[in-house]
């Protein structure tokens, strides 16, 4: 009896183990292969809340794959030399997969190429670094800023079918993100829609104080602004109260999301009858796609089907679809509710 009891116990245990094992196997995503590998995330500049949430998202994605035995992060602190030396240092340590936010653009390409030639899987993302996939690095995972422009353009068309005045604000002069977004908008908007900013966009450096100065000059200059387009929504929050000084309603806004902006809309929509809000996801999840590609190549997994990150539409105050405007007043203003990572986890990431 004892023996058979024991046998029975073992049988149950082995069945349970098998069930647990298969469950664990089912949880492992297809991009995570069987070969063990180390992964490093290299940031050109890590000093804002968007980057903190993005870094935490990249780490969370890497943690989904048990084959990743070691995860490292380096912050270039806006210093191109440091970013280059970070990349080289990971390559020298034999890190198998390196995911790079190449803020400095083509300046980091030689370092990427050296790491790639030394045998690492190198995946730059979001910022175009030039070069060629398969020759200078493994794969570039870009973001479709043009699609953002198309989404904004379609929404502008839906709320202003007869045309109107559009004010477009972007970051530093000549930044490729702003140019792509403008190209996207222009595929949808015809001549009825007049861009009242200097070509190609008003330069704000994504700095809230400069944004405020530029916006007050534009409001004074233009009697009629029907819609403001900005690729960094939260930087508008400080500037929008300027409309009140002119006794005018805040107009419609097409931009990217941010908790502070959602809460600003919620607090001010009553006093500003023209204030409609439309946002695309600000793109923290771009890093997840890049990590998936890097891990797939390093561990022998199946690469994802997407090769480019398309920021989904997030909030629309007019249609409420796919989501109404969201505000979590209990969480910091500097988090992004569009990200896959939960608001509470983001709050931990930005408050650490």
């Amino acid at each position, binding site marked *: 009896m004892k023996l058979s009891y024991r046998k029975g116990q073992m049988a149950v245990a082995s069945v349970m183990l098998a069930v647990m094992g298969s469950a664990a196997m089912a949880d492992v995503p297809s991009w995570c292969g069987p070969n063990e590998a180390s992964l490093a995330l290299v940031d050109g500049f890590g000093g*804002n809340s968007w980057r903190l949430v993005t870094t935490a998202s990249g780490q969370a994605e890497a943690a989904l794959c048990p084959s990743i035995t070691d995860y490292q992060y380096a912050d270039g602190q806006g210093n191109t030399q440091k970013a280059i030396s970070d990349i080289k240092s990971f390559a020298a340590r034999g890190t198998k997969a390196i995911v790079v936010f190449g803020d400095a653009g083509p300046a980091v390409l030689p370092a990427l190429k050296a790491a790639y030639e030394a045998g690492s899987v190198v995946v730059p993302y979001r910022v175009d670094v030039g070069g060629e996939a398969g020759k200078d690095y493994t794969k570039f995972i870009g973001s479709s800023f043009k699609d953002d422009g198309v989404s904004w353009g379609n929404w502008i068309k839906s709320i202003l079918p007869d045309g109107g005045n559009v004010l477009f604000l972007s970051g530093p002069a000549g930044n490729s993100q702003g140019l792509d977004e403008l190209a996207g908008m222009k595929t949808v908007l015809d001549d009825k829609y007049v861009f009242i900013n200097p070509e190609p966009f008003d330069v704000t450096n994504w700095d809230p104080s400069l944004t405020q*100065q530029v916006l*007050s000059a534009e409001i*004074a200059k233009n009697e009629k602004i029907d819609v403001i387009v900005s690729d960094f929504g939260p930087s508008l929050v400080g500037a929008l109260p300027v409309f009140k000084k002119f006794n005018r309603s805040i107009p419609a806004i097409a931009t990217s999301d941010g908790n502070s902006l959602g809460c600003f809309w919620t607090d001010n929509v009553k006093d500003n009858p023209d204030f409609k809000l439309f946002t695309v996801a600000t793109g923290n999840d771009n890093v997840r796609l890049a990590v998936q590609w890097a891990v797939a190549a390093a561990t022998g997994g199946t690469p994802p089907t997407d090769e480019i990150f398309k920021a989904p539409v997030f909030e629309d105050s007019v249609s409420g679809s796919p989501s109404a405007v969201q505000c979590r007043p209990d969480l910091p203003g500097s988090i992004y509710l569009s990200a896959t990572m939960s608001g509470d986890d983001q709050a931990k990431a930005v408050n650490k």
Partner: protein
Amino acid sequence: MTASPHPTKPTPALVSPFVVAKGFITVVAASLLLIVLCLVFAPSSVAQGALAGSLPFAAVLAIVGLGQMLVVQQGGFDLSVAGGVSLAVVISTHYPAGDSALLLPAVLMAYGCAIAAGVVNGWLVGFARLNAIVATIGMNALIYGAVFAVSGGVPKITTPLLAEIAGGDSFGVGHAVYFAGAILIIVAFVMKKTIAGRRFEAIGANPLAAAAIGLNVRRHQMMAYVLAQLLYCTAGLLIAGITSQPTAFQGDSLLLPSVAVVVLGGTSLLGGRGFPISTVIAALFLNQLSQFAFAVGVPYSAQTIIQALALGFGIGIYAIRGPSFANKINKLSTREEDNEAIVS
């Protein structure tokens, strides 16, 4: 002939500190010219709403400029402007984290840090005799370390109370403008009308002579850096209130303009007399110049060029030495400066 005696001494008006300075005339003339240009080519840039939006930023620049002026008067340069302003911004936004009740301790903490940074700067330059540029650039790096320690480089939203105090307005004018006005009055009064202020200028004009008559040169030089940091801190607190979500690097864009307004205001980079009123007018001038460029709607590259040309022109005026009249004025003002230094 007896009815019209010729005085042998110069009339009091010639040595009076109220003689209008060349810097003042230049900066006022340039500002008036700019206002006329604005009225003709970009009337929207002088509309009430536009001024209400831009004047608070001019006020911040004016306060930072006054701080830099104090240091320049002692023959120094303060490159820790950016750090000083940014540290005040992050302390006043991160420590309270949206809770207005914690604003007062945060403000006190910010001023405490400003005094500490100023004392170290002042000691390095005044007592350890380090080059001012080297000392303050090192201090700036240290302060930025503190900025990262406090904020992690992340912006935080301003407390409602600070937004009301610094960003609100009374009678259609932003509170920041009142702050700048009050600070200007204090700086101008103390410097021109008190013994301490007169000593301060005299030491800047000629530290050797000042030391020879027994003035404490080093202590005054140190005080310039401390007072400058206090003014940067005030400017940082105002920025934190004016912009609802200030970045952790808000001071960076103020370094060059802070030197520019001092030079445009006519204060010599070699030290000596300071011109607080002219410095503040120069801040208004620079601010209006960028508003003009925005309002004209020229491309960003042209905006930058317009500002650079205006600045070059403004500074160039002081470098031009006319053959006769201007020389006389220069000699007169030098003599007047010497007289003042001796009187002080």
